[in-house]
């Protein structure tokens, strides 16, 4: 190997960075998957919770190269999937990220050499709006005319050559979901000119003059280039609220000029809010008139006919409840099969180690700390996978938007957005994916409220706690009675969450009623590959983020419950451990709720994961290797008593304990995820205190109130 080839192998001299921009629902992600296959990685942009997806483009298929050297096939192409946005006028974090990346202002992200604008060919008018904004930035653009099959089915004939000439950039037809046009697009990406075209759309002359004047000032004041200054000038002049615009905030001269220019336009009877937007749409309409011919006009497309049923006053609800019911049946019933299997496997593994090793601290750490910790994470995986599978399916088919459409009225009552519905629903399985799903809510304050109330949806980890306590209260109750109490706990959580949302919206998160302006995309057949890919990506994120926390905490809790060492039976040992001491310390605090120090240990243990309550109680009450059987523990619960002989687990104290579990933030992995999603400790700490505080209050009211009433 010569020195020069060595160098080339180590430093690929030509790396091309390509950004994919486009509206939500334009098939951008399908196109990204088709271009990169599975050579992609998902992360976050620094400082914001906007997903960053990067991938390496596979080389275009072509005449086989004789040498197997991939370097001869062209440069390495790195593809960046920008968040889907309708505009670059910067109102949501998504729009900000898209704009910063395109301008090369995002740290750790190279400025792109080329922007592929993905547009939905069946919805060209609105999709091209973003293209005009991207072109304003002076970057080199290729338009991927995606979903060509849909456009054809709608009877649209698109003259590609005319469209390309009017837009001043290459136009490539694709059907990303079926891998059509991808090779062609790759070739165009490699060969497209690396310079932006001239601006083709124009505003009314007076508006043009004002923009030009502001552009000059921005160039002088901020030292930015001409194309960027033009784009910024259009945005600044059209935008009412300038509080998030650094170019205006940083310069009084710019603010003064803005108000004088607006005054001038108003005098000329030009609406500065709408003039630029109208001009873009007028230009788009004029080029589409030339390039697109509608051969057949069919009034009702298939999608409209589906909507006649799925958003129908009666059938819409039937379908909606059916889908949600199916999802919950899968999560709570079908998922228990793999969950039990995982549980058994981990128990078997722990037994294996117990047999193979001499009794020692290390052995206990491995079996009770590490294996229990890993098992505690992995056991939730089936539920999380099913949940994300459904969310992916609902999103890809377009039904998610209908669910928000149907539920918005209800959510609106609590000052929430229709889109809060899915995150809250997901939280019934686990608050962590629910909180992650809140990313789809654009407005930061609405998103925050959703995140803050999500853990009040009773998650599946609370189920075993409710189950054992209900069985304690009503040993021989009919299933219907048990279900009734269970349902009451769920409803308590829901009402609490809605009340908290109303309260939060009126106090710390005061803002205008959230805006609900949402596209209802046409129904589409989902691609199994893309749904599975999304499911895997999100579940992996869960394992990575929540898993490490749950695992670490399990080990810490194990240590707290095992040290300082004490000879004697496990119950005695626990009594004298740090956790036991803590249980004694908090007993005076929790006594008014009806719990003694033993329950206190369970509450402390629950901070890793709530269902740990049951296994902790097994140790506390010295139930040996009971396995899954709950009978011995129930028996112990019924016999458990205060020192003076009064029973510990009365119906009232069990009820109080259940209410405590409904409301308390006993999940440090949720705290960790909220910290990540809100970029700081302020909100997770507030949440920890208000939830746990309210839990204490509610349990206190239940127990003391019940006692006063003579129960």
């Amino acid at each position, binding site marked *: 190997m010569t020195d020069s080839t060595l160098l080339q192998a180590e430093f690929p001299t030509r790396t091309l960075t390509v950004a994919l921009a486009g509206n939500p629902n334009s098939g951008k992600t399908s196109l990204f998957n088709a271009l990169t296959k599975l050579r992609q990685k998902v992360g976050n942009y620094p400082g914001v919770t906007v997903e960053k997806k990067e991938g390496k483009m596979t080389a275009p298929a072509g005449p086989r190269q004789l040498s197997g050297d991939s370097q001869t096939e062209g440069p390495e192409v790195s593809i960046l999937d920008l968040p889907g946005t309708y505009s670059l006028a910067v109102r949501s974090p998504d729009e900000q990220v898209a704009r910063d990346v395109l301008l090369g202002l995002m740290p750790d992200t190279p400025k792109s050499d080329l922007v592929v604008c993905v547009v939905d060919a069946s919805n060209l008018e609105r999709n091209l709006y973003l293209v005009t904004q991207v072109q304003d930035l002076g970057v080199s653009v290729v338009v991927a005319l995606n979903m060509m099959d849909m456009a054809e089915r709608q009877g649209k004939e698109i003259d590609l050559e005319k469209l390309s000439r009017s837009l001043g950039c290459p136009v490539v037809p694709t059907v990303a979901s079926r891998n059509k046009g991808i090779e062609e697009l790759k070739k165009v990406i490699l060969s497209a000119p690396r310079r932006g075209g001239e601006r083709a759309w124009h505003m009314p002359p007076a508006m043009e003059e004002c923009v030009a004047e502001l552009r000059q000032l921005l160039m002088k004041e901020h030292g930015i280039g001409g194309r960027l200054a033009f784009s910024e000038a259009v945005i600044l002049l059209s935008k009412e609220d300038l509080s998030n615009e650094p170019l205006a905030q940083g310069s009084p001269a710019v603010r003064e000029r803005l108000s004088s220019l607006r005054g001038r336009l108003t005098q000329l009877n030009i609406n500065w809010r709408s003039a630029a937007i*109208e001009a873009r749409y007028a230009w788009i309409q004029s080029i589409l008139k030339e390039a697109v011919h509608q051969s057949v006009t069919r009034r009702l497309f298939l999608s409209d006919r589906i909507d006649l049923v799925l958003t129908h006053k009666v059938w819409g609800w039937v379908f909606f409840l059916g889908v949600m019911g199916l999802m919950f049946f899968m999560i709570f019933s079908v998922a228990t099969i793999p969950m039990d299997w995982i549980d058994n496997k981990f128990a078997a593994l722990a037994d294996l180690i117990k047999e193979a090793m001499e009794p020692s601290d290390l052995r206990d750490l491995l079996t009770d700390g590490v294996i229990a910790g890993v098992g505690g994470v992995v056991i939730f995986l089936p539920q999380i996978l099913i949940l994300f599978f459904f969310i992916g399916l609902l999103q890809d088919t377009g039904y998610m938007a209908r669910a928000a459409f149907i539920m918005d009225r209800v959510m609106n009552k609590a000052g929430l957005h229709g889109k809060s519905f899915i995150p809250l629903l997901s939280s019934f399985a686990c608050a962590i994916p629910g909180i992650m799903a809140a990313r789809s809510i654009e407005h930061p304050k609405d998103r925050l409220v959703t995140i803050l109330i999500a853990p009040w949806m009773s998650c599946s980890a609370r189920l075993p706690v409710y189950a054992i306590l209900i069985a304690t209260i009503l040993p021989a109750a009919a299933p219907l009675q048990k279900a009734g109490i269970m349902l009451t706990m769920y409803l308590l959580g829901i009402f609490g969450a809605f009340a908290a949302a109303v309260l939060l919206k009126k106090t710390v998160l005061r803002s205008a009623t959230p805006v609900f302006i949402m596209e*209802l995309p046409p129904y589409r057949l989902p691609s199994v590959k893309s749904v599975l890919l999304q499911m895997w990506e999100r579940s992996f994120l869960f394992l990575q983020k929540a898993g490490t926390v749950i695992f670490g905490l399990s080990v810490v809790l194990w240590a707290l419950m095992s040290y300082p060492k004490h000879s004697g039976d496990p119950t005695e040992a626990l009594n004298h451990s740090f956790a036991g001491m803590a249980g004694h310390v908090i007993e005076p605090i929790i006594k008014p709720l009806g719990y003694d120090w033993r329950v206190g240990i369970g509450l402390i243990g629950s901070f890793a994961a709530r269902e740990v309550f049951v296994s902790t109680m097994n140790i506390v009450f010295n139930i040996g290797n009971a396995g899954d059987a709950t009978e011995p523990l129930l028996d112990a619960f019924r016999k458990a008593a205060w020192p003076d002989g009064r029973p510990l687990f009365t119906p009232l104290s069990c009820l109080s304990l259940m209410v405590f579990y409904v409301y308390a933030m006993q999940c440090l992995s949720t705290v960790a995820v909220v910290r990540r999603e809100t970029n700081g400790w302020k909100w997770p700490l507030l949440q920890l205190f208000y939830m746990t505080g309210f839990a204490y209050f509610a349990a206190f009211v239940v127990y003391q109130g019940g006692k006063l009433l003579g129960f």
Partner: protein
Amino acid sequence: MSMILLSQMAPGQKGEVKDLSGTGDICQRLLEMGITRGAKVELVRFAPLGDPIDILIRGYHLSLRKKEAEAVVVEVG
């Protein structure tokens, strides 16, 4: 010909956007989504609970609350 608000249209009724009376970010968002003067608009349906509404504009379906739709003045035939 008469002028009504987008929120007052009946399902199936068609018209043309005449004006946007609102100000601020919401107004800009509506404009950017294509609700500009001269655009053809059809109210397709109300959500099962009566709000929000589903409109057809520039060839696609957009949903918005009646409150937001009150900012849009439509000329109907």
